[in-house]
């Protein structure tokens, strides 16, 4: 039972073929007009995309690379519909970062099997957070450990939202979820803008995020993240609270008290080559730093430079 978007000029578009897919419980949306299809895909992504090679204006390649470079959509499986000739001559898989191919001449049974395999595979690898669609704990661990093993010298940054629990209590879960999604989007976009595919963003869970970027990018990324967060957070607070500059909610002990407006704390652990060998050590340093950065008012980042220094916005 998946939502499938089909973007082809006519392959697999016959009524009986679509009925076949629907009989398996899939919801199929078929589009001939690529531009319109893409807009629909971006604003409401399907579980799987089937797209034909050789669309007008090179749009197939554009779309595939846009989706695969989007940290939140990269895991959506894409099946490329190719001609028999493409199969004979081979394709440049670097420019077509797809998950599978199917011949435009294939039977609908074959197509169905490929769809099911792709979906099963994507469930196997995904530990993505359902709210932000960002990689979860095991991917985070793997990514940081890889970075350490290869001595890439990135900085690992731990992000969390200050006073998130009382915010959730006061404004309700659905607005809390929006704030978490907002932070996820900001991190993805800022990291991507500064370091393209060299960066990584993951969502530990709740209001905790982790990203790592080349060491020299850490500071500008933190600054931009905090700048964007500060611009957007007022949209998620009531005017009344904004004017007062604080809000009233319950603390962990259940006592009603006032809290400063929601802000962001980032603990930055630069991992020069050879300094850490294991993910756990990085996490331990981060935990120590987090205490320091949390003690400051407002949104802040704090970089561990042994002789620690801080940045404030």
């Amino acid at each position: 039972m998946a939502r499938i978007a089909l973007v082809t000029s006519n392959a697999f578009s016959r009524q009986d073929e679509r009925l076949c897919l629907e009989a398996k419980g899939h919801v199929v949306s078929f589009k001939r007009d690529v531009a319109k299809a893409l807009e629909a895909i971006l604003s409401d992504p399907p579980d799987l995309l089937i797209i034909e090679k050789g669309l007008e204006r090179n749009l197939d390649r554009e779309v595939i690379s846009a989706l695969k470079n989007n940290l939140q959509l990269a895991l959506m499986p894409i099946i490329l519909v190719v001609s028999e000739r493409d199969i004979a001559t081979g394709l440049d898989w670097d420019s077509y970062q797809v998950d599978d191919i199917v011949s435009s001449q294939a039977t609908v049974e074959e197509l169905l099997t490929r769809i099911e395999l792709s979906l099963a595979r994507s469930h196997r690898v995904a530990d993505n957070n359902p709210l932000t669609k960002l990689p979860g704990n095991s991917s985070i661990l793997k990514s940081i450990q890889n970075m350490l093993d290869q001595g890439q010298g990135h900085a690992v940054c731990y992000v969390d939202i200050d006073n998130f629990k009382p915010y959730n209590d006061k404004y309700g879960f659905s607005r809390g979820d929006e704030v978490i999604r907002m932070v996820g989007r900001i991190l993805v976009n800022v990291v991507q803008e500064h370091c393209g595919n060299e960066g990584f963003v993951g969502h530990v869970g709740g209001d905790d995020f982790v990203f790592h970027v080349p060491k020299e990018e850490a500071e500008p990324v933190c600054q931009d993240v905090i700048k964007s967060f500060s611009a957007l957070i007022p949209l998620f607070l009531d005017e009344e609270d904004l004017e007062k500059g604080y809000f009233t909610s319950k603390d962990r002990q259940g006592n009603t008290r006032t809290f400063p407006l929601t802000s962001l704390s980032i603990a930055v652990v630069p991992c020069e080559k050879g300094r850490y060998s294991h993910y756990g050590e990085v996490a331990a340093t981060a935990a120590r730093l987090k205490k320091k950065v949390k003690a400051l008012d407002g949104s802040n980042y704090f970089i561990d430079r042994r002789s620690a220094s801080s940045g404030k916005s």
Partner: protein
Amino acid sequence: MDKAELKKRLNDIQSLPTLPPIVSKLNEMVADEDITAVKLGKVIEKDQVLTSKLLKMVNSSFFGFPQRISTVSNAIVLLGFNVIKTLIVTSSIFEVMQASDVGLFEHSLGCATACGIIAKMRQIKNPEEVSTAGLIHDLGKIVLRSELPEEYEAIVREAQEEGLYMRQVEKKRLGVGHGEIGGMLARQWNLPERLVFPIEFHHKPELAPEYKEIAAIVHFSDILIRAVGFGYGGDPWVPGLDHVAWERIKLSKSQMREVIAELDEKLIELQDFTLEIKVEG
């Protein structure tokens, strides 16, 4: 065509066309390696169709900020470069660009500019939101132009020949005016009510259930920009001023002088851009 049928037509609208020169300019920008999302935003926020598409996307269920985001700069932070780039690469254009399309583009841009100036003068917290409302207030006209081209032409012709406002002819032929049509689409696209109501009620701002002040500023700016003769709103008539709305946002004579001076200056700056659009068109 009745209202129900019109609503059904609106339901199917995934996307609206815009001016070819704007899209080709953006496509060129996208090809430049040093381009940033913010720079693209500066052009997008001049075009009502691209702006409303951007807002549609960010307020959609996938991005998950329903009816929350009302400005281009906030949308850009949340959508990111790749999504914006795809939006540009896949945007559709008018097959034939008419002089009136450019006229409406200028009218919308001018109205947005006036809205921003007045919002700032009235010390409204988020003036960019008010100028966005001004930019997309005539979205309904784009809907008519692209989805019901024959009706649209008939409406324009009848308005000209009979000396009527476009919205009068629209009401007569379709049962609703472009304000309501734009409002319906904006609601369907999940845009915030802070934008929906000003679009829907820009000719009758006092009927807006909420955000009357924004609606009144859009209403007044629409009139002001026609009066200074920037762009073309589709009919040659300057709409009448709603006096209750004016009382709500009333500016003193000296404030008004300031508004006009600043508007003049900003419109001259905009002319470089609109000329570029006209020449390429």
